[in-house]
């Protein structure tokens, strides 16, 4: 069964598409993780990616962030074919990823975490020869970007370990927002969080969209997905089973498509154009 025709879909790809995957295949021995999957992220949207365990969600995300190299298929960023050899290359091209397991250095302060691996140096002799960090500049920039995102934190100088789980993940999300030039990918960013803290992170993701940055949100949490996503990409058996809108479909519809309990022709046809 092939509910979405890859070629037809590709032909409609046009301006406004930031990141696209066409017919991407990835096999591990006898296991086919990605079986010709398509993907399309449009400008300024929050696209949720959902799917059952083993449906190929994480393989798709890994392919999009350079963490795995596909066996075949194409990935296009702003319409240009790209071949990531590693996550750093994807990052250089403006794709930032937030991981579920709180990838922050808890003992370091917030500003240090925001700029970790991308520290700025002072201008002139102090920076070029003595390699001195521009701590003040980074702190100011960190404060500005947090204010921009309306994310409230005790102090930019406090250690990340003194923050709540939601605030910590907020730091990771803000880091992605600060450096992502094209898009941000959030891999289960709220999986480890409570209800209130999840709300904080979702607000932050909305603030990122408001600034014009498209977001790919991988999540198991259907209510969250329906609360925040503009479109929902549903993975099943290593392929895109459908892309639906939370306005036209219910959670039950999405779960039915995910599990293969429902036909999806009509759902996809209305979205493809």
């Amino acid at each position: 069964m092939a509910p979405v025709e890859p070629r037809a879909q590709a032909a409609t790809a046009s301006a406004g598409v930031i990141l696209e995957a066409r017919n991407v295949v990835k096999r591990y021995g006898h296991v086919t993780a990605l079986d010709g999957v398509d993907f399309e992220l449009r400008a300024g949207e929050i696209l949720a990616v959902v799917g059952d365990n083993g449906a190929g969600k994480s393989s798709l995300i890994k392919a999009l962030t350079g963490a795995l190299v596909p066996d075949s298929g194409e990935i296009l960023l702003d319409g240009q074919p790209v071949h990531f050899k590693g996550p750093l290359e994807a990052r250089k091209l403006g794709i930032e990823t937030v991981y579920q397991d709180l990838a922050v250095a808890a003992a370091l302060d917030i500003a240090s975490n925001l700029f970790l691996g991308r520290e700025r140096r002072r201008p002139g002799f102090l920076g070029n020869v003595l390699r001195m960090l521009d701590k003040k500049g980074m702190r100011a920039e960190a404060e500005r970007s947090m204010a921009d995102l309306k994310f409230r934190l005790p102090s930019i100088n406090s250690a990340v370990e003194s923050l709540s789980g939601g605030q910590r993940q907020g730091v990771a999300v803000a880091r992605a927002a600060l450096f992502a030039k094209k898009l941000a990918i959030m891999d289960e960013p709220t999986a480890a969080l409570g209800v209130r803290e999840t709300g904080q992170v979702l607000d932050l993701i909305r603030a990122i969209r408001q600034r014009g940055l498209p977001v790919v949100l991988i999540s198991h949490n259907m209510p969250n997905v329906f609360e925040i996503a503009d479109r929902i990409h549903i993975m099943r058996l290593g392929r895109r089973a459908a892309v639906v809108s939370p306005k036209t479909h219910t959670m039950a519809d999405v779960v039915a498509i995910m599990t293969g309990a429902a036909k999806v022709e009509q759902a996809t046809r209305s979205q493809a154009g």
Partner: protein
Amino acid sequence: MNSASALASGRPSTIAKRLIATPSVGPLLVLLAFGVIFSLTNPRFLATQNLSIILQQTVIIGTLAIGQTLIILTAGIDLAVGAICVLGTILAGKLANSGYDPVLAMALAVLACTAAGVAAGSLIAGLRLPPFIVTLGILGIITAALRLISAGGAFPVTDAFLGWTGSTIRLNGFILTYGVIIMLLLYGVVWFLLNQTQWGRHVYAVGNNPEAARLVGIPVGRLLLSVYVLAAFIYGIAAWLALGRIPNADPNALQTANLDSITAVVIGGTSLFGGRGGLIGTLIGALIVGVLRNGLTLAGIDPLWQDLITGILVIVAVALDQLTRGRR
């Protein structure tokens, strides 16, 4: 959540928390406490002359503890610290005594120490072997090699350049050696690297959360290698300072260097779990070890008891570290 409520509810608790959070305050209080105790038990303790002797006695351990701090900050440990330093003294002494230019002899010795760091760092960063085992192995190898090179015995090193770090200058009755000045300069330089440069940030990040460091694109392996190499280079400099303190190359010297340098680092507030602490604490920690040994000597207590007390001290310091970590 608890930090936010503390901020809101009470000023005094915040100030107390800040004081506790300021890393070198605790060690400084311990140092002062020991100072008060020893000055009460022996009036000679606080004499200018004795204070400058304490500083001179701290030179070797204080310098070794700089390298040990760097390594512990990455959540590693260096058990070969004393052995690498002794390797430096033996090589420099041997080469100088057999007619080499003393500057060249010392340079070659520092180079040999640095090479030991390259070996340790490559095994730890490249093969991902545990630092504990790698440096324990290097300790064994170097100890055996030293016995072979020196044929088991100690020998005097009389060269003026090699002993230069022990020569003194007077400042208002306070006697400093060049060795003390070199140690303090090293503290300054490495403090700058740790606190003001990207490299230093990355040392803390790798020690705190290597996975997060890797994810943000920090070359973790290369960073670890650089830490072990820099540390071993500093041990080589410490070898020069050691020859200035005692103009004698002894393969059996610095037996307590592991205990003392790790104690200095840990008492100084650097966590054995990595990523937390700093050099100012280590300097204070090294002084605590120096004050303790000096004060106990002045009180006429057998050196064996000094080791015993240092041993207790390091365990107490680690226990405190673990307790405060658990409360967070």
